[in-house]
């Protein structure tokens, strides 16, 4: 076959080489197969809403609910909800302590949520941690009635302490403890911070005041004041320029000595 084609090659010079014909057929078959598979197997809802299976949204939306939400609890337990709504725990979801209760809402008798009474449950939020925001009520875990359960004195739905604390230290324990070992240990909080009565009920809306004049600290720290000897004095006219004293110094743990 090889030799006999020699004479005919002159005529065949313009024709497509045999190799390309064979390859062309092969590639056409492969491309056809690929297109067929492509058309057949792309998921039905793909591309309807974007480059994804639109059916996935339905699957994800159909996931079952575990937490019913505070409003759902209030539908039946309206008495407890009313009490809690006026208490310090108004922002705490029922399920935060009692666990996910959607099953209970569906069928109240089939599953009842837990009623946690151990200390660890409350300490989770209320044990003292330096990282918690100032003013959040915290207790020192090992000091505050270590043997008792919290619920013995505090009703979780109205957790105001049985004897309302008069000390600022009840919520501002860290500041109080810091101040107690500082040079200002003998100063009452109220001496510098005039706190409105509502502060205890709604702390962020009724903030205590801070001194607005340098002369305030000057009552003790200005030259020529009547304060006891040993308290550091400065010439208020020279010291500190335009700033109020507490804009540089931290009054709860002042430097010096």
């Amino acid at each position, binding site marked *: 076959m090889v030799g006999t084609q020699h004479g005919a090659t002159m005529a065949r010079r313009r024709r497509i080489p045999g190799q390309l014909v064979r390859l062309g057929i092969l590639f056409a078959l492969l491309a056809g197969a690929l297109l067929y598979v492509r058309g057949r197997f792309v*998921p039905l809802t*793909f591309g309807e*809403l*974007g*480059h*994804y*299976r639109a059916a*996935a*949204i*339905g*699957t*994800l*939306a*159909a*996931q*079952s*609910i*575990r*937490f019913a*939400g*505070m409003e759902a609890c209030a539908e039946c337990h309206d008495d407890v909800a009313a009490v809690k709504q006026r208490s310090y*725990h108004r*922002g*705490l*979801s029922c*399920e*935060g302590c009692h*666990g*996910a209760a959607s099953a209970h809402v*569906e069928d109240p008798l089939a599953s009842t949520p837990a009623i946690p009474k151990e200390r660890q449950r409350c*300490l*989770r*939020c209320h*044990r*003292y*941690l*330096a*990282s*918690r*925001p100032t003013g*959040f009520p915290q207790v020192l875990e090992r000091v505050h009635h270590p043997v008792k359960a919290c619920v013995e004195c505090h009703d979780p739905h109205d957790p105001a302490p049985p004897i309302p604390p008069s000390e600022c230290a009840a919520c501002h324990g860290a500041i109080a403890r810091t101040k107690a070992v500082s040079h200002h240990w003998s100063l009452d909080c109220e001496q510098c911070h005039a706190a409105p009565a509502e502060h205890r009920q709604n702390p962020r809306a009724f903030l205590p005041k801070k001194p607005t004049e340098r002369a305030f600290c000057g009552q003790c720290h200005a030259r020529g004041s009547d304060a006891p000897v040993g308290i550091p004095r400065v010439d208020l006219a020279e010291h500190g320029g335009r700033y109020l004293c507490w804009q540089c110094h931290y009054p709860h743990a002042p430097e010096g000595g």
Partner: protein
Amino acid sequence: MGKEPSGHAIDETRRRLICELAKLPAATVLLSLTGPVRARAEGDEETDEHHYAMGIQIDRCIGCGLCVEACKVENDVPDEPFYFRTWVERYTIYEDGEVVVDSPHGGRDGFRPRSEDEERRVLRSFFVPKLCNHCDNPPCVQVCPVGATFKTREGVVLVDSDYCIGCRYCIQACPYGARYLDPRTKTADKCTFCYHRLRRGLLPACVEVCPTQARVFGELEQQASPLHRLKRFEPLHVLKPELNTDPKVFYTDLDGVVR
């Protein structure tokens, strides 16, 4: 008749069917069977354009970890400390300037005092809840080779676990460490803003249980919402803004040391 969402006609008969079904008991189950339902939000006036976002107020977070626990319960996330849809980090900045970050079991069981804090002086310390930011320019969606993760019209980034091939490129591409591989399905997984709850007018589980309203959820366009108030009054930060992912989780009082 309300506004029609772009490119998707509302079926009037289906809408009426859904309204009827909603009156029956066990409505939630039946509603889920009828297919996509519009979420009910406050002030909703027949609009299909919800753009969900979350606000996190750092100065309110007490690090209780109820959000982490609730998320694991609501979404059936494996209990081990390697898989989190949301977690809480504690930042402790000492007087010498050193910053220490920890997140024991993601904060699921709350936190305990750091033993070092008794010796060293702490300058600042706070908690930072983290979760998927549901970015508007999500790098995870960009890199998915098959289209298994996507951003819905509401701006929620979801994963189609029936289509995901488990290549893990999205997990590598997320700058926030928000994704993990579900060991049971071998597909990528992450926070969904509790999409199944949003569709039924409920809040995400983490927002639901937060005792101090540190987590705030809402819609970006809605004029009256806790989120809108944050936008008006608070300087809002996002994580890693330089990466241009356009996150939709906004932080107030976010310290500069937070990554």
